[in-house]
């Protein structure tokens, strides 16, 4: 009856605080959770095993990305992926991975969850590492043969890393602790 009373309190009062549900969540098996838990943090947390270089990534890019993003990431029907360095404070800013993105692991996260546009989640982790390396290479951030893996990708420092100002109060503690998570 206790939960029914709480439920009624919600309906009558419209209040959200201190309510209680019927407890119908099914406890999730840790192995199942791990299979769902694929996001990668800005510090590289969650990056999987595997590795790839820009040389390998060029092949992946030619097959899966070039049609929309153009030769060497210079843009096609969709976003320009390389260049734009030094343009952000000018009249015609060009936001690319190299000129704008603050965290390199985010690139792995995004590619693995959402790209290629027509066949997301079709690339192996090695291919995603290679593609990540290629896009960083195109932006002059790493060398052509520098392998990207869970450790080296987390160590990449993006050129625009320090140019974001957290506006939300919840980030004030983060700023005083250091910068945004390192």
């Amino acid at each position, binding site marked *: 009856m206790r939960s029914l009373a*709480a*439920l009624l309190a*919600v*309906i009558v009062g*419209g209040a*959200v*605080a201190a*309510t*209680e*549900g*019927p*407890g*119908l*969540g*099914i*406890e*999730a098996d*840790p192995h199942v*959770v791990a299979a*769902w*838990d694929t*996001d990668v*943090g*800005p510090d590289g947390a969650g990056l999987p095993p595997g590795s790839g270089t820009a040389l390998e990534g060029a092949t992946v890019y030619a097959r899966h990305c070039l049609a*929309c993003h153009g030769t060497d990431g210079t843009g*096609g*029907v*969709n976003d320009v992926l390389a260049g734009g360095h030094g343009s*952000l*404070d000018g009249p015609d*800013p060009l*936001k690319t*991975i190299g000129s*704008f*993105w*603050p*965290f390199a692991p*985010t*690139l792995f*996260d*995004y590619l693995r*969850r*959402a790209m290629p*546009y027509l066949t*997301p989640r079709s690339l192996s982790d090695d291919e995603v590492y290679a593609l990540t390396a290629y896009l960083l290479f195109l932006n002059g951030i790493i060398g052509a043969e520098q392998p990207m893996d869970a450790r080296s990708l987390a160590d990449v420092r993006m050129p625009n890393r320090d*140019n*974001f*100002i*957290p*506006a*939300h109060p*919840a*980030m004030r503690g*983060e700023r005083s602790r250091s910068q*945004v*998570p390192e």
Partner: protein
Amino acid sequence: MAKPSVEDLTPAAGNGLLHRRLFLKRGAAGLGVGALGLLTASPARATPPWMRTPGRPMTSYGAPSGHEDDVRRLVAAVPGTDGCGISMTPLQSLEGTITPNALHFERHHSGVPDIDPDAHRLLVHGLVKRPLFFDMEALSRYPMVSRIQFLECSGNSSRAGLDPEPLAGTCASLHGLVSCSEWTGVPLSVVLDEAGVDPAAHWMLAEGADAAAVTRSVPLAKAMDDALLALYQNGERLRPENGYPVRLFLPGYEGNMSIKWLRRIKLTERPSMTRGETARYTDLLPDGRSLMFTFPMEVKSVITSPSPGLALSGPGLYQISGMAWSGLGRITRVQVSADAGATWAEAALSEPVLAKSVTRFRAAWRWNGAPAVLMSRALDDTGAVQPTRAAIIAEKGTNFVYHYNGIQAWRVGGDGQVTNIYA
């Protein structure tokens, strides 16, 4: 219909704006159809043809009148895709505050998934005592709340204010990435409490089940305050394009954070710095730095009638009607001007006036037939005043893209045509 008294028709501001008591006493109906010039040349028939034969049968799911076929969303897909892009609500064709579900704006990053509700699960994990799966049948048994609140894309109105020259367009194309619905669902706090929030958690990552698996980080304080797991929109189950079978709904926050097709909530210590909150929905400033985590959509208004495409038919008494909203709270006042902001009159606010919701405002205007510039300016209960375009640009430049909320100016020409201008 009682005619307005002489007292009602005394000016409240320059260039023909009248006192709002015209609406407060009589309601908007007193100024309705005739004033808007919608009477056509058709004769007033004593017995029209539709009175001479039985009408069509009942239907199991209704549709608008065929005479309203032009009331459509304005669709704009990213080149090379069908489902990535936006569709905009035809604000100029709607009244009141609720957006019909079929006309709610869309923003998709990889199309609209066709989700089988029986196969869909919501996982709550991360910094919780017990990671939990919820199926949709289970969620539907939780205590629900209903709230009438707006949803607005963070990029709404951007080109209406930040293009170098005023863009030709309508309310739909300039401001149509805002809609308002009654959202019904389970308070997210109830579900998080069941999983048991670890005190170390300060943020949560929300993930959608579309092909882009869109993710955003949300402050846990917002999640525990007024976030909903929305299951219903205006009384029916969510439309697929609005997140069926379940979406996150974060009142007042930029739309893309209200993750559609919600499949996963992960409690974290810090924000996850996803592409959406770093490379995408951040506001670029003139010095090359960018504001991030600019969550609330701040106070804003727009006159929807008259507006481009709704020409005035000649001098006379008109209703000015528009919508105002604030992601920070409740609209307290809306002011309208017919002389490009030189003088302002108070608009009447239609009840209900709700927090983080669209409020309908109306004002009475006697147009003298000369060119005029109409504006509206909203204020909310945090004391925020909708800024001018010039003030915004002075503060943030013209490259920030997101969260533009400047005052919109409509020029009414001597021919009654309405156009977007900068004033």
